[in-house]
């Protein structure tokens, strides 16, 4: 069928459209945004740019990050703001929604830098977007805190302005592999199923490395496409390979589906590790009894016990305040959102100014005692100063099994 009915008049003088364009162009120029107004009459606020995926595929994580930011902001603003020298300046966070599209995140980072002229920035969600947006930060010299960038590839561009509060992916795989070696000595065969995406794949590769290092045999390592609806074939193959330790990486929906299909196919193994979904209550709710004995590792957990010199005072207090405000336990994404705020605040207070160079230097020095853990950064800006806890879901509740100082239980073998 053709567009016959909608065909326009063919004119020998298409000139009228020129006028239309001119008018439209003029209108668009005139619709340029007005100036930003400051919301505080007292002290000028410290403005932080935060592009977030508030809609689209990553919106659950975007919302969680925002909750973390907001809790920090409200807590600090209740005391008047961040202490810069002798004055207290309130915090203002400028949010934009990049709709889970990384190029848009980069554009918005640019906008925050050049038009909104923010003082500092928080990275968008995830390793990929953080890496992409860090170019903008470097270009404009804006110290940027990355709450969710764990893959070391994010930091390999030699930038000076990026600081991430997640330790690298191998800090998730190494302790887990140690535990497996220690507690399950006859576990020899490892199967890995990773999502074909920056972070889950990088994580899968770390697990492969950690397993091989300890003499375990990786009998299966495959990637699945994003948006896979059915994992039965991959899991059937895994079952045939008879692994003792199964590792799966991906996002929540993938993990829920994989766990369920594992049970559907009657797959049993001594240890099943899934990252990061078990850290979220949604995973436990959605999988019910199937969540039991699934192990995972995460950068922070309400069970950790850090005392801190930051706005919250301790991880226990943080958990309490989060619960009061949002009626739910904080997960690691909420916590890291607050952590970047806390670190930035401490750096500003220590530097005694919001001068970007001074703050950057102070950040690089590290040594921040936060509720999230002690935070210090390596030469490329990634956190290297704490050990992500390993935990296991036991009877529907997450129990920390490593490190020993905050252990709540022992590893239980056998997943049905």
């Amino acid at each position, binding site marked *: 069928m053709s*567009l016959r009915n*909608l065909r326009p*008049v063919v004119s*020998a003088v298409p000139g009228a*459209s020129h006028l239309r364009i001119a008018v439209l162009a003029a209108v668009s120029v005139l*619709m340029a945004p007005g100036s930003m107004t400051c919301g505080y009459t007292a002290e000028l606020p410290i403005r932080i740019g935060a592009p977030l995926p508030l809609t689209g595929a990553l919106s659950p994580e975007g919302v969680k990050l925002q909750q973390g930011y907001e809790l920090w902001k409200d807590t600090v603003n209740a005391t008047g703001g961040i202490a810069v020298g002798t004055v207290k300046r309130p915090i203002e966070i400028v949010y934009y929604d990049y709709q889970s599209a990384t190029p848009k995140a980069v554009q918005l980072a640019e906008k925050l830098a*050049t038009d909104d002229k923010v003082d500092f920035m928080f990275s968008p969600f995830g390793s990929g977007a953080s890496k992409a947006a860090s170019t903008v930060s470097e270009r404009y010299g804006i110290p940027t805190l990355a709450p969710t960038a764990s893959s070391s*590839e994010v930091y390999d561009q030699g930038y000076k302005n990026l600081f991430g509060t997640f330790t690298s992916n191998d800090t998730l795989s190494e302790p887990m592999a140690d535990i497996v070696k220690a507690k399950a000595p006859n576990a020899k065969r490892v199967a890995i199923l990773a*999502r*074909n995406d920056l972070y889950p794949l990088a994580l899968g590769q770390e697990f492969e490395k950690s397993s091989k290092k300890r003499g375990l045999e990786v009998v299966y390592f495959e990637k699945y496409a994003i948006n896979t609806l059915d994992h039965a074939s991959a899991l059937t193959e895994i079952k045939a390979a008879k692994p003792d330790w199964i590792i799966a990486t991906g996002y929540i929906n993938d993990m829920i589906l994989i766990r369920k299909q594992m049970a559907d196919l009657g797959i049993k193994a001594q240890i099943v590790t899934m990252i990061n979904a078990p850290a979220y209550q949604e995973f436990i709710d959605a999988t019910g009894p199937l969540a039991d004995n699934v192990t995972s590792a995460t950068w922070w957990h309400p069970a950790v016990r850090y005392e801190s010199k930051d706005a919250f005072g301790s991880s226990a207090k943080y958990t309490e305040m989060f619960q009061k405000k949002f009626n739910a336990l904080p997960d690691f994404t909420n916590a890291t959102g607050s952590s970047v705020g806390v670190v930035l605040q401490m750096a500003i207070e220590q530097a005694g100014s919001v001068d970007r160079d001074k703050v950057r230097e102070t950040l690089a020095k590290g040594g921040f005692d936060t509720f999230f853990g002690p935070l210090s950064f390596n030469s490329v800006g990634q956190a290297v100063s704490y050990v992500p806890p390993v935990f296991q879901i036991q009877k529907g509740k997450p129990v920390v099994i490593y490190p020993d100082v905050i252990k709540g239980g022992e590893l239980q073998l056998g997943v049905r």
Partner: protein
Amino acid sequence: MKRPPVMMIGFGLLALAIVALPFAATNYLLRLTTIGFMYVALASSWNIVGGFTGYPSFGTADFFGIGAYASGILRSSGAFPLPLSWLLGAAAATVFSLMVGPAILRLRGHYFAVASLVLAAVLREITNAATGLTGGGMGLNLPTTGTISVDAQARLYYASMLAAALIAVGVATLIWRSRWGWAMRCVEQNEDAATVLGVNTLATKIVAFAASAGTAGLVGAIYATWIGYIDPTDAFDDLLSVKPIVMAFIGGVGTIFGPVAGAIVFLVLEEFVWRNVLNFHAGILGIIIVALLIFMPGGLRNVARGIERFFTAGRTGHIDKVVPPAVPS
């Protein structure tokens, strides 16, 4: 072709504004206008296949993405200067269209639409899988645009996108006025009759497809270097296929300047809507699309026709085609 003086002055002012903008405007406005040029180019590009030839293509994303990745990969190798990687990006997209075109252009209507839409999905998956070449799901980070200043970079991309838009509209105009354009219009009206007339419909469609591919690929190539990061979901985004269609609808499908006007109106609408509504913009875009298609299927051309008549009253050379009633196909 004589034009009324008012038109020439208006046109001149516009040209002046466009040239002066990079030196006078805020970064935000500069970025917005660059996106505007991108939209103009994409809408015009789609129009060649969808408007002139009447083939419902949902394939703009295919060409855009290929151009983006080709240019991205070339730039990442470090051996190609910007303009060359842009041209090669456009060339890659054109080659792709020449490979795929002869096959899927034999399909009509729905099947063609679905095929072009699904091609994007296939390309997305292939790109995801070819991790070594494209970075797969991790995306591709492009090297920065040399050592020129940030402001100069912004102006550079403004100018390049403007060039892409001019090229797209220029190609469309050239085609429109050529024998190919005539052949495309024949195909659009009634493909079988065109064949009877002796028009090589397949060749015509392939030319349209290739022209569309080259222009969209050029835009994709420039875009990749501008943003500095691409990944399969964004380079082959379905919205990239749908938005140019909507823009062409707004301005008038099948005209030269319809897509241009439509792109600008769409941009203004999108900015206005998006800036104010944080979490419902997709929904509002949906409402706008539906409202547009129901209430203004002809786009603004009705407005345009009025303005045209106003200026051309009494002139000759005004072709008004009589639209025959819809025949079941």
